[in-house]
């Protein structure tokens, strides 16, 4: 129930990777035939990943994961565009984007963090108002990892295009859940992570549209066409490509299945537990994301009791010596104080079943009742 954190590797992905550890272990840069086989696997994988998102193979750069892809996209466009010092992003981005931006601020760049509405949608009007002559990049995530809100990427892309600004989106949470096509979305760069889509950890990709002026952030032996040096992680890349192909093939069935479970869980919780709210957008929402806030109880305590029942979830509430701190995403949604500390994120995966949902609903009810009995805020 915590698939937005990570997913188990699909057996078909493992099977695809295995030969590349022992039999076809060559370095794709070597000129002999062992290297040739690895190079072939690499080019095949690049083609598969490109096809899954409607890109050209040469527009795919393999990286170590979503975080590196975000770093490359944001830091990579800086050196080529030295006169442009301004970046636009949102307040609810992943730390991989936010912390990269704040590092750039410390190096003299300027960043505008556009706010979101109470359902987590980026304020498009404010975004456009913040465009400057020296804006080099807009980076807005495709969907938020905590509350699941899907952003109007196409609209933002139009603004970027109109003002001749590069547009990057972090699609780590959307690949395999909703359609992701780089031309449909009209983005210049798009980050992908493997381990969120039943692929191995430690590998990802960045789509870079042809013609984008970008420099590498890792230098060395000029792998990945000079964009990302370091001997390619062939088993990982093969695994990512297989996971992408599977995600693409199964997209309709998987997202329908997850959405049915999601909607069932939400409506049943609302039926049986009072004083609960759904965080994020009711419709523009990832099919696998449920983010609920329960009044009178605290997130970490719920998480712990559910963990004891064998259910893994996450919370936007963290406790550090006497004070509770809500996540940067929940804090941006302007929730009432009563709801801000009692949030839980349940993120579904394709291997979950309706029986799992039954068990979660029942366990959640017990958990919330138990904690409300202890809570001085509840009249229960």
């Amino acid at each position: 129930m915590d698939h937005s954190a990570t997913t188990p590797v699909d057996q078909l992905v493992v099977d695809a990777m295995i030969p590349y550890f022992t039999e076809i272990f060559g370095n794709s840069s070597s000129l002999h035939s062992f290297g040739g086989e690895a190079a072939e696997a690499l080019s095949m994988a690049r083609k598969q990943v490109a096809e899954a998102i409607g890109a050209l193979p040469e527009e795919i750069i393999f990286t170590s994961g979503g975080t590196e892809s975000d770093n490359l996209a944001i830091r990579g466009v800086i050196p080529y565009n030295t006169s442009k010092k301004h970046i636009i992003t949102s307040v609810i981005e992943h730390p991989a984007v936010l912390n990269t931006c704040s590092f750039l601020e410390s190096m003299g760049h300027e960043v505008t963090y556009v706010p979101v509405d109470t359902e987590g949608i980026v304020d498009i009007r404010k975004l456009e108002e913040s465009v400057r002559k020296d804006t080099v990049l807009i980076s807005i995530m495709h969907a938020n990892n905590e509350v699941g809100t899907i952003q109007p990427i196409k609209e933002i892309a139009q603004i970027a295009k109109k003002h001749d600004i590069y547009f990057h989106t972090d699609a780590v949470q959307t690949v395999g859940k909703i359609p992701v096509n780089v031309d449909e979305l009209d983005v210049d760069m798009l980050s992908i992570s493997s381990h969120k889509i039943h692929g191995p950890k430690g590998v990802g990709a960045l789509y870079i549209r042809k013609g984008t002026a970008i420099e590498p952030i890792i230098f060395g032996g000029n792998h990945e066409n000079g964009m990302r040096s370091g001997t390619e992680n062939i088993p990982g890349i093969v695994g990512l490509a297989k996971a992408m192909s599977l995600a693409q093939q199964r997209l309709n069935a998987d997202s329908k299945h997850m959405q049915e479970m999601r909607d069932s869980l939400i409506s049943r919780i609302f039926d049986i537990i009072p004083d609960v709210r759904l965080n994020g957008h009711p419709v523009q929402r990832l099919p696998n994301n449920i983010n609920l806030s329960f009044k009178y109880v605290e997130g970490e305590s719920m998480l712990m009791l559910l963990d004891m029942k064998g259910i893994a979830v996450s919370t936007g509430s963290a406790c550090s010596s006497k004070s509770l701190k809500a996540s940067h995403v929940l804090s941006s949604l302007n929730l009432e104080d009563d709801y801000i500390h009692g949030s839980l994120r349940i993120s579904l995966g394709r291997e979950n079943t309706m029986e799992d949902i039954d068990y979660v609903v029942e366990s959640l009810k017990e958990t919330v009742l138990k904690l409300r009995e202890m809570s001085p805020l509840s009249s229960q």
Partner: protein
Amino acid sequence: MIEEFSNPHNVGVIENADGVGEIGSTVDGDIINISIKVTNNILEDVKFKTFGCVVAISTSSAVTRLAKGKTVEEALSLSNDDILTALDGLPEGKDRCSGFALDALKLAIEDYQKKNK
């Protein structure tokens, strides 16, 4: 600590309590409410209600368990270390949280003493 959290002792509010102590606010954190019943200078009953994380709940429970049956003076002399020992320690960085529940107990005792001057 986990045991104390999953099976907490003395949850509730004492009706017509002799002393009540409450600490915290919803804006920035945990809220702990401790109520006491005192007979012949002995804390005959101690109950808690807590809104907060695992540490806040387990330390509240431990404080009520340790204070119950003690004299007012003994209860006032309970220390952070007593709570930590009762819980077999707390996760790193959270050992200061135990003082919070203890503060609520002390407020309850002060409330009792004020009323019985």
